[in-house]
């Protein structure tokens, strides 16, 4: 009983940081609809800045002043990011801004490395709160008690701000219907900036306030990201009490998980999230999303059409060039191009459900890695010939997508995205944990193609045929009745249903189809690398695909391929330099600002402008 109580306190103390950071994310999302990936970076900056301030400001007063100042400085950084990077792209398609925030992550990572160096720093202890208190005989750190005491003040302060002040009224109104708020004469731009300031400040405070319990390091931005998204979703998007309850729930469950099921540490919060979303699809305190937008943001999307003659000729010429690559290119150019094709197929499969189906999946890596693992497991456990394993990979991945799709289909929007993320994490942790069968994080190695394919050039052609074949198949499906039905379900599910389309079933089929093609790219991947590791199932892998789709242009059919190829070649080139993350981040931000319709969409416009392709025909 004593221990139980002490553990409860530990959990509540841990919830403090999680709540602060997650509430900021929740506020930003609620008002601006931006999925802010850079929120973890704000948290990291808060920790580093807080640490630096604590070196110069002494004593108890200095400590708490440092925490506050760190929050405010990060808030100002948030404002700078909002004004410079996000403001120019509010008119872009929904979720496009997440690409910009991804660029911000890269820039902040390298800047933090430049400023604070590579070594981890241990946070200073809070003056006056170093020791422990014995509560019913159990030691409880004083600082834990301080955190438990402080958090409700933040919660109350935020609640007061949101519920009782004029600013709060505007924020709530914008959360409900931001276009209406704009129509009523509220300056949205400054409202968004203000909310961004508040959100970033909270993240910075969270980073600084956890210093006495840990420190600051360069991996903490990504390490907290999944957890805060989980908290926001469990609590309900935009709900502050929800964020607090969810943070406490996750933290307390985690403490007991550590004691009674030590192996559960990887997966517990995702299980909780999946369970909550199955029972309450909009989180504990969330309300059903009223269609946030009236119609689509930005220009209306053009109906897709089969490519015109000029574009077809261009594509044919490109394919011919690829087919002839082994004649003039080096071995390495073939390997690099194979990698790019594999990645493009993976991105294109996600684009199919995201662009055409309007289903944002944050867990698409489950099917890429899933396909790779199906093939690898068959080869290493039953000695399956490469050809059989290769064929079964897309089937296995498609089956996984079939199941996961069925479980996720009742949700929409960001909740759907988060549930796919949860399932992807479940698969990841299963592979990670089940070492005897999957090799754990030591992976499966020696998965090489059959002898007839076992050279750079033969495998290059193999990749070319299946990779390009897969991309063309996706494209063909987009022009088929299935593709039309899918787009109808996206644009207006009620009208689509009225015409006799079973929208959920169409979307489910599309999800499965996309999953199996992701599995195909995974199979191509595993035989080209000879090994597979759980990294291929990670969130980062899913986000890679997500980002190139927006970078390439979500509203064009070729967006994923163009974006994927551009980013992969750029990365290959840039990683040769010391500060490649900074450069890549800046390039991404630059592209996002000058080409808010993505590379492909912007090229199309330019081409039309100069009459290279005819208006309307030039769908690419």
């Amino acid at each position, binding site marked *: 009983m004593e221990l139980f109580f002490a553990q409860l306190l530990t959990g509540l103390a841990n919830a403090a940081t999680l709540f602060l950071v997650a509430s900021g994310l929740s506020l930003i999302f609620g008002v601006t609809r931006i999925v802010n990936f850079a929120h973890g970076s704000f948290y990291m900056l808060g920790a580093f800045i807080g640490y630096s301030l604590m070196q110069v400001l002494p004593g108890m007063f200095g400590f708490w002043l440092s925490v506050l100042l760190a929050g405010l400085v990060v808030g100002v950084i948030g404002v700078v990011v909002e004004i410079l990077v996000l403001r120019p792209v509010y008119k872009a398609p929904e979720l496009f801004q997440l690409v910009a925030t991804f660029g911000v992550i890269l820039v902040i990572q390298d800047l933090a490395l430049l400023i604070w160096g590579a070594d981890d*720093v*241990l946070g200073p202890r809070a003056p006056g709160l170093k020791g422990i208190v014995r509560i019913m005989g159990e030691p409880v750190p004083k600082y834990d008690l301080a955190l438990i005491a402080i958090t409700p003040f933040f919660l109350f302060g935020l609640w007061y701000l949101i519920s009782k002040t004029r600013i709060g009224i505007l924020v709530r109104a914008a959360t409900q219907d931001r276009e209406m708020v704009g129509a009523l004469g509220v300056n949205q731009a400054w409202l968004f900036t203000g909310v961004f300031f508040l959100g970033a400040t909270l993240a910075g405070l969270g980073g600084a306030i956890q210093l006495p*319990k840990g420190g600051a*390091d360069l991996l903490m931005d990504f390490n907290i990201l999944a957890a805060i998204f989980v908290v926001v979703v469990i609590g309900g998007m935009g709900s502050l009490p929800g964020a607090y309850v969810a943070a406490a729930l996750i933290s307390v469950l985690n403490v007991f998980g550590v004691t009674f099921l030590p*192996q559960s540490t990887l997966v517990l919060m995702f299980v909780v999230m999946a369970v909550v979303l199955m029972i309450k699809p909009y989180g504990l305190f969330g309300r059903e999303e009223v269609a946030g937008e009236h119609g689509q943001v930005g220009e209306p999307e053009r109906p897709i059409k089969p490519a015109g003659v000029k574009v077809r000729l261009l594509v044919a010429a490109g394919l011919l060039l690829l087919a002839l690559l082994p004649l003039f290119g080096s071995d390495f150019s073939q390997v*690099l191009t194979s990698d790019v094709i594999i990645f493009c197929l993976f991105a294109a499969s996600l684009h199919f459900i995201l662009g055409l189906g309007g289903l944002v999946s944050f867990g698409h890596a489950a099917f890429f890695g899933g396909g790779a693992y199906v093939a690898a497991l068959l080869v290493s456990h039953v000695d399956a010939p490469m050809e059989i394993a290769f064929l079964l990979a897309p089937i296995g991945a498609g089956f996984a997508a079939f199941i996961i799709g069925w479980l996720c289909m009742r949700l929409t929007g960001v909740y759907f995205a988060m549930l796919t993320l949860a399932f992807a994490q479940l698969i990841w942790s299963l592979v990670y944990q089940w070492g005897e069968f999957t090799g754990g994080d030591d992976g499966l190695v*020696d998965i090489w193609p059959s002898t007839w394919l076992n050279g750079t050039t033969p495998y290059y052609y193999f990749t070319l045929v299946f990779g390009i074949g897969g991309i063309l198949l996706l494209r063909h499906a987009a022009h088929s009745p299935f593709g039309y039905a899918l787009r109808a379900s996206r644009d207006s599910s009620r009208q689509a249903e009225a015409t006799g389309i079973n929208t959920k079933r169409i979307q489910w089929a599309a999800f499965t189809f996309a999953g199996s093609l992701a599995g195909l790219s995974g199979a191509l991947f595993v035989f080209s690398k000879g090994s597979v590791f759980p990294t291929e199932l990670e969130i980062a892998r899913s986000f890679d695909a997500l980002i190139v789709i927006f970078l390439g242009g979500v509203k064009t059919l070729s967006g994923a391929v163009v974006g994927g190829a551009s980013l992969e070649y750029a990365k290959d080139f840039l990683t040769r330099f010391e500060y490649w993350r900074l450069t890549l981040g800046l390039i991404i931000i630059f592209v996002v600002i000058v080409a808010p319709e993505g590379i492909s969409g912007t090229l199309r416009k330019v081409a039309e402008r100069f009459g290279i392709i005819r208006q309307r025909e030039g769908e690419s």
Partner: protein
Amino acid sequence: MKIQKLMATALTVAAIGVTSISANAADTIKIGEINHYKRMAAFANPYKNGIELALEQINAAGGVLGKPLEFVYRDDQGKPGEAVKIAGELMTRESTVMLTGTILSHVGLAISSYAAEKKYLYLASEPLADSLVWAKGNDYTFRLRASTYMQAAMLAEEAAKTDAKTYATIAPNYAYGKDAVAAFKTALLALKPDVEFVTEQWPALFKIDAGAEAQAIERAKPDAIYNVTFGGDLAKLVREGTTRGLFEGRHVYGLLTGEPEYLDPLKDEAPEGWVVTGYPWYDLSDESNKAFVDAYKAKYDEGPKIGSLVGYMTAQSIAAGITKAGSTDTDAMVAAFKGLEVDTPVGQIMFRKQDHQSTMGAFVGTTALKDGKGVMVDWVYKNGADYLPSDEEVMKLRPASQ
């Protein structure tokens, strides 16, 4: 070659001011070095410094086979697939003669499998996974650093000397942590069969909930604790554990805890009285160790990390291997590495014929506080050769050599 002689030559060269060794770059022997320079900058940079120091000395002494030795460094972002791609590029386009590098075990395993498939030589410098030379071992892969098994066995030997009966383990929840716990258990139970493991904690890597872990261990009331966490996880565990009195009156064994990479960030909160493996460079007085430490401090104005030592020894091993092979032909180099003896700062090491593991050992000592920072005291250097399983067992562990 004597380190001192190398040193003297290096200093002479520096004094004259000859700096452009790579002037005739076409005629160098190039080594492909793949690492997580960004993702794990705190570890990869000292390692690279170690390599650079060794290269300076080797090339000042005339290089290898009459040519200067050169490393081509590439960042793999910590992704195995990327590492394999880069390995291919280095070998085909940059015309490197062999591959080395990586810290993360899974990336090392990916390169190892690729090297065997393409018949390239790969010297795994830092990855610790036992499977790299045993279960997944192959003809083309050698490993320099003392493996998880060896270091865990060294700590188990120390643990067996005490009267502690019940043990708690805490290790990050991934392959390295699991290997380290399994090896420690096996070795300790072999020495002291009546020992009992009362709890095993598995925090997620770099996401430790230290307060909860400390409570869970305390609840099991063990006599001793075996710690495998490192980096930020270690810092949090030490802080929460110390605050809550977890380590009082208990024996604590820490794998890698004494390495400067992990001990230095703890500053004056470094734990005292833990038995750890590490690298007490500040305390080394014998000729070869001290020569390395002094040269490193002279060049970089800071003490070496364990990574620096490994980087230095990597370049030394490669130079010795190519010299012994007499050519940069892969088969000749593979043959040369089998049984290759190298004179290093920690003494002579040998790459074993039977499993391609080097006999590089580790320093085992007790942590203490000195001038406001953690150090190792009462340390000894344990030779890796004494902590490897018998040849028959190795044969069983390593399908590749059957």
